[in-house]
């Protein structure tokens, strides 16, 4: 991120903030979408995070750390949305026409569905660690710094989350795959 733009926005330059929001909006939304697994909630979280960024920018002491700081505000917004709505809308998925068909494809689709279900069973903090590490490729130390929690907590959450996802794949996918092959 261009630190000059960050500094201008810190000083209240709305035009600079617009540039900033345009630059980071997509990636913030991609992360909130993956944490919350709900389009409406993700939009609300991203909007809330962007407004928080504007409101709190003067308090960011090191403009060069804007990216990590913005993720932190986004995670806060995702937590808030997650607490507000504990009932998740059903997520129906259809196999698009250009996807390959056959037993292997059925298995892949089934994996996705099981991952979706397994992921939704996780708490928002656990999902967040998975997304920051496996989607954004953040090292665990950076995840810890972004979330403001100890490294051990991050490792624990990731371990728990991945166990949950693996269990979801193992417990549900195999019978369904066998069913699909018959």
């Amino acid at each position, binding site marked *: 991120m261009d630190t000059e733009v960050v500094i201008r926005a810190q000083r209240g330059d709305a035009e600079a903030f617009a540039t900033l929001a345009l630059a980071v*909006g997509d990636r913030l939304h991609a992360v909130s979408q993956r944490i919350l697994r709900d389009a409406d909630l993700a939009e609300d979280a991203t909007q809330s995070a962007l407004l928080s960024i504007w409101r709190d920018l003067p308090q960011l002491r090191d403009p060069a750390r804007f990216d990590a700081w913005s993720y932190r505000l986004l995670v806060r917004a995702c937590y808030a949305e997650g607490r507000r709505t504990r009932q998740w809308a059903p997520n129906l998925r259809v196999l698009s026409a250009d996807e390959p068909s056959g037993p292997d494809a059925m298995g892949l689709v089934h994996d996705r569905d099981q991952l979706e279900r397994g992921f939704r069973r996780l708490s928002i903090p656990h999902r967040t660690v998975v997304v920051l590490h496996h*989607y954004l490729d953040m090292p665990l130390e950076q995840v810890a710094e972004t979330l403001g929690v100890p490294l051990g907590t991050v490792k624990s959450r990731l371990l728990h989350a991945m166990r949950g996802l693996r269990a979801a794949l193992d417990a549900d996918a195999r019978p369904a795959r066998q069913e699909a092959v018959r």
Partner: protein
Amino acid sequence: MSTDRETTRLVRSWLEEGATRLPDRVLDAVLDQVSTTPQRRSGWSAWRSYRMNTYAKLAAAAAAALVVAVVGYRLLPGNGGIGGSNPTTAPSPTASLLAKGTFVVAGSFNTTIDATGSGSNVSGTMTARDAGTAQGFSVDLQCERTIDGVLWIGGDVTETTYADSPKGTRIAILLKPGSPVQGIFAFQASDPPSASCQAFFDDMLALGASPQGLQPITGTVELAP
């Protein structure tokens, strides 16, 4: 059975799917609100790397549910004197004293606290007023806990003119003994509030809360030994 590596591969592949573009209407809504949304320029805490401070590992506000405000204060020197350039903690003159003093929060919040008791049997009040905006709040103190050497004293807002802490908000003041003593406020912005004063602490910890931005402050306070 899936291997760890296979699970990781599947998860990474699955996460790549899905929307990545923020709808224009969301961005437009944000930019529309910017003109009417003031920036916070003082008083409440800034985000810092928790590596900068050991206590930041306890940090607050990993979630939007939490907002942490920085206050500063210093304790009575060891000889019982008030103020001074290098304040230290002083033993409590009474067994039931939890915290008592008046201090200015990093040039922003004038704070008075008078609390006795321990655990979930705390009684007392705390008032804080932002010198810059003249907004403030009063808190009915109800519980305390010491976590990693930091004293947390919490309660409910009973009166307020501060926009970010409506009546009923659970607030805690976190005091780190030392020379100088440091402190912060933490308040819960989520709705509904935690089930109890102690549950508020639990919820904060569960969210990875930590007192970032601890700063020395001016004034005096006595703490329980």
